[in-house]
């Protein structure tokens, strides 16, 4: 009933969706792991990334605008998050999780309204460069070219993040702080700045996710809420704070969705969530080791 082409195209498409989810979720997971902050405003930062990408492509026309947006939009988000961290978050790390959850939820509402004030309520849209327009035929199924680009970016981000946390000094300190922040402070490291750095890096990834997704969707208010629930599910099934867990979770989510759509299209919505339920019953702390 299902030919190879259909299976293959769903696999590629699901994989590329998983890559965007991974970029966003790795950031969320990093912040969760190092700072122990369940940052609901992560979705808002992703949205700001998409809107910033829109503004940048409006300022710089042509393909250069898209590439610039891919670099600058996450930087804009990083700046916003830096201000938020130094002004607000850094006073709150000692509070309990419920307080942090409420606080970041409030922040997500505020950021949502800020986006409306800055960019207005209309739908926005940007174009991928000519190179990525149209689709490629693979085994008789057509796959958008942009999705191939996403397949390239995802692993790139994963490798860069792995190199950073394992091979650089600050990355190692951040990992150490995640395990025992008092000990890191005791050896004379300014933990506050380590946290600021980790937070900004996590949010940078949210912004990058927003910029990456921008050409494929309508850039609109509310895109933050759609994403953040999925993102939390993904980091939970992957293992809280574990970067590779975010990758595994994203793959599970993206692929179950893509194949669910093929096998049982009327009820495709439930497949990724079913997968989450199954994973959590089977492994309550997630697929990989949680740092919590």
């Amino acid at each position, binding site marked *: 009933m299902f030919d190879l082409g259909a299976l293959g195209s769903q696999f590629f498409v699901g994989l590329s969706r998983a890559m965007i989810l991974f970029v966003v979720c790795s950031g969320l997971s990093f912040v969760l792991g190092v700072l122990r902050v369940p940052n609901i405003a992560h979705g808002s930062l992703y949205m700001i990334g998409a809107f910033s990408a829109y503004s940048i492509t409006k300022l710089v026309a042509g393909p250069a605008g898209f590439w610039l947006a891919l670099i600058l939009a996450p930087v804009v988000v990083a700046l916003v998050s830096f201000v938020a961290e130094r002004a607000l978050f850094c006073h709150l790390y000692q509070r309990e999780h419920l307080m942090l959850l409420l606080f970041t939820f409030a922040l997500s509402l505020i950021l949502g309204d800020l986006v409306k004030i800055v960019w207005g309520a209309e739908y926005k849209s940007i174009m991928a460069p000519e190179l990525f327009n149209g689709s490629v035929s693979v085994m008789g199924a*057509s796959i958008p070219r942009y999705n191939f680009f996403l397949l390239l970016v995802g692993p790139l981000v994963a490798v860069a993040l792995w190199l950073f946390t394992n091979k650089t000094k600050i990355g190692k300190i951040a990992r150490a702080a995640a395990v025992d922040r008092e000990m890191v402070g005791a050896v004379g490291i300014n933990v506050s700045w380590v946290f600021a750095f980790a937070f900004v890096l996590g949010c940078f990834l949210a912004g990058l996710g927003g910029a990456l997704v921008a050409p494929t969707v309508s850039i609109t208010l509310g895109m933050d809420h759609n994403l953040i629930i999925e993102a939390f599910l993904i980091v939970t099934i992957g293992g809280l704070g574990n970067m590779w867990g975010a990758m595994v979770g994203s793959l599970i989510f993206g692929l179950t969705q893509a194949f669910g759509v093929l096998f049982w*299209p009327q009820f495709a919505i439930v497949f990724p969530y079913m997968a989450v339920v199954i994973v959590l019953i089977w492994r309550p702390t997630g697929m990989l080791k949680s740092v919590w």
Partner: protein
Amino acid sequence: MVKKCWSSRKRIFVPVLGLVLALSFTLMSAPADARNIKVGIIDCYSGPPAVYGNDALNGFKLALEEINKKGVLGGKIEFTTRDTKFKVDIGLNLAKELVMRENVDVLVGTINSGVALAVSDAVSKKEKIPFIVWISKDEKITGAAGHRYVFSTADNTAQGGKAGGVGLAKKPYKKYWIAGDDYSYGHAIADSAWRNLKALKPDVEKVGESWWKIGEPDLVPYFTSIMSAKPDAVILCTGGASMTNALKALKSTGMAAKIPSWIHTAIDHAVLKPLGAEAPEGVMGTIQYLFYYPETPENKAFVDAFQKAYGNPPGFPAFNAYLTAQYIADGFRKAGKIDKEKFVDALEGLKVKNPVGGTVEMRACDHQAVFPMYFGVTKKVPQYDFVVASDVTTLKGIDVLPTCEEIKQSRKK
């Protein structure tokens, strides 16, 4: 130090109080014999739906400018707006507040079908307040849940779906796939389109369905799986922000070029404009208002005036709201006095000026405004830097509405 602070505040407070008192006296002394008609507008002015809410409000304001020059029953039409934030409970409370505290003569709104149905039932029907629905498209509003005090100047799902069914019946496609947003709007459009298409062309066949959650950002996996099923055509039932996602995915997967699809309101320029040149060509759509079609002098004048006042051409909500303002003005003129019962009687069968030319009748049997629907296909044209509807055919208003008999049947249930 503290004392000084207080005294300086008092120093400001006294003149401000004086000003407020003076102002309220001048307001109170204004002549009160020919009273203004008060319209209470509840709609969503925050979040993504605000695009439509603001467009409607602008259309309403534009119509009032003209109406108030002449006046209605010696007074003017004034309005006050409330933001529902797209929430049913808030909308309901605001509607009650407008009726109880502001004593509005007519309620108008809203984009959210849930709010429209709740207000229609709990406020309009109960308090006997005329309520004109101007954007939300649930067919129950003037269908199964209709009553004496509720009216609609919006197109509804029965009409949108029927327009699609009538339009598609003229095409040669046999095997259809149905897909859309998994909530009431998506399913209502799908049911209506399929029912009408099947009635007009019994040999059509449904090969499959897929439904995604509202706001689903990535429709590519849905479209690639539809393409692998190879239907002749697709009925896509989506709207709002998902519409943009759908159009983008139609283009990026190449589905637009391979399989024809119909989406109600796909030819709405509020959807097509932000996409610019990247909107797909060849997508069929239906809508009740296009600022570039028909090219009548009336439509041109309406578009020019709107463009001058608000900086962009009117969308379909502005069209609906323009009609609404005229129904309120002409309804009260015909009623002869500001009386809610007489106003309702006056509206039944009332014909007002259609901004594109001709008239639009308020059907007496269900209180639904009857206007034509346009069926078109998206296409790039040199005049505009965004994709517009081409090969537009006009479907007569009465042909795409459920009959009065069908309405009666649905209300009996």
